[in-house]
């Protein structure tokens, strides 16, 4: 329903903000017209992102009216948010769980029990990364093996999400997503210490 909005003054600014829409897309896959699955074609995703940004970036709409520019800004923000979500495996997995109705943050969707062994490994790794005596070489080695662990979990996640089509529930996918988040934090911790 189109509403006639005041053009000037306080109400005008307020109504523009109300009607400007949100920068957070509800469905990142739909936003970029990408098939909803855990596995994504990274190259195709990047190409799609660039194409959509070329079309919707505000710099391409400088001759349009204020509303058109505002809509362009919102659309590009949503596109960028969708891309940054889908391009990162841990965010992609979390988003997919949300779309499928079993977000990780929702305990009612099922308790995620990480076994003690895994948490102990995470704790040990975080201690080692934090320790100033840990050498750069050792940090590099840890980063590499963590990266392999992440790849392995991603493979398992692909299978877990796919098995849902065959009727399996999402408990395995949720557990794997939780593990992925922890492994990602390890990567970030190493990165913080080593990257300038």
């Amino acid at each position: 329903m189109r509403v006639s909005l005041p053009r000037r003054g306080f109400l005008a600014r307020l109504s523009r903000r109300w009607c400007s829409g949100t920068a957070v897309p509800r469905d990142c896959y739909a936003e970029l017209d990408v098939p909803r699955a855990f596995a994504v074609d990274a190259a195709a995703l990047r190409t799609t992102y660039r194409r959509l940004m070329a079309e919707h970036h505000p710099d391409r709409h400088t001759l349009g009216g204020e509303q058109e520019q505002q809509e362009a800004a919102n659309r590009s923000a949503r596109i960028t948010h969708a891309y940054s979500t889908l391009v990162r495996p841990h965010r992609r997995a979390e988003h997919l769980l949300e779309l499928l109705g079993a977000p990780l943050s929702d305990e009612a969707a099922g308790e995620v029990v990480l076994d003690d062994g895994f948490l102990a490994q995470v704790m040990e790794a975080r201690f080692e990364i934090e320790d100033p005596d840990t050498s750069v070489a050792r940090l590099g080695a840890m980063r590499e093996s963590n990266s392999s662990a992440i790849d392995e979990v991603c493979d398992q996640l692909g299978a877990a999400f796919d098995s849902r089509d065959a009727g399996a529930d999402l408990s395995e996918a949720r557990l794997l997503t939780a593990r992925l988040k922890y492994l990602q934090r390890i990567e970030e911790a190493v990165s913080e210490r080593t990257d300038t």
Partner: protein
Amino acid sequence: WTVGTGLVGAPACGDVMKLQLKIGKDGKIEDAVFKTFGCGSAIASSSFTTEWVKGKSMDEASKIQNSVIAQHLKLPPVKLHCSMLAEDAVKAAIKDYQSKQEGRAAASEEYKPEPASAAAQ
């Protein structure tokens, strides 16, 4: 004395918290230490909790409520789960201590004393 160790994680935010209780022969908590990898609220929650449990009996400590932690730290709603994690950590530490005690009791029935090193975890 012996040590109970609680190691807990919050899957939604990727925090990991380790809380250890040093428990005296009288069953009272003589000391408590923590290590938390997570946000400031998680670290503060575990820090407050270790101070809160000192001197209490295990029974008292197990009754810790995350709302007490949250209120003391004035945690915003989005960080309430951090206080929940600290509560879980204490309970896990007590459970660990109790299972060690049970293990020791069971072992002592076999006429083979457990080496003291098992208690020093």
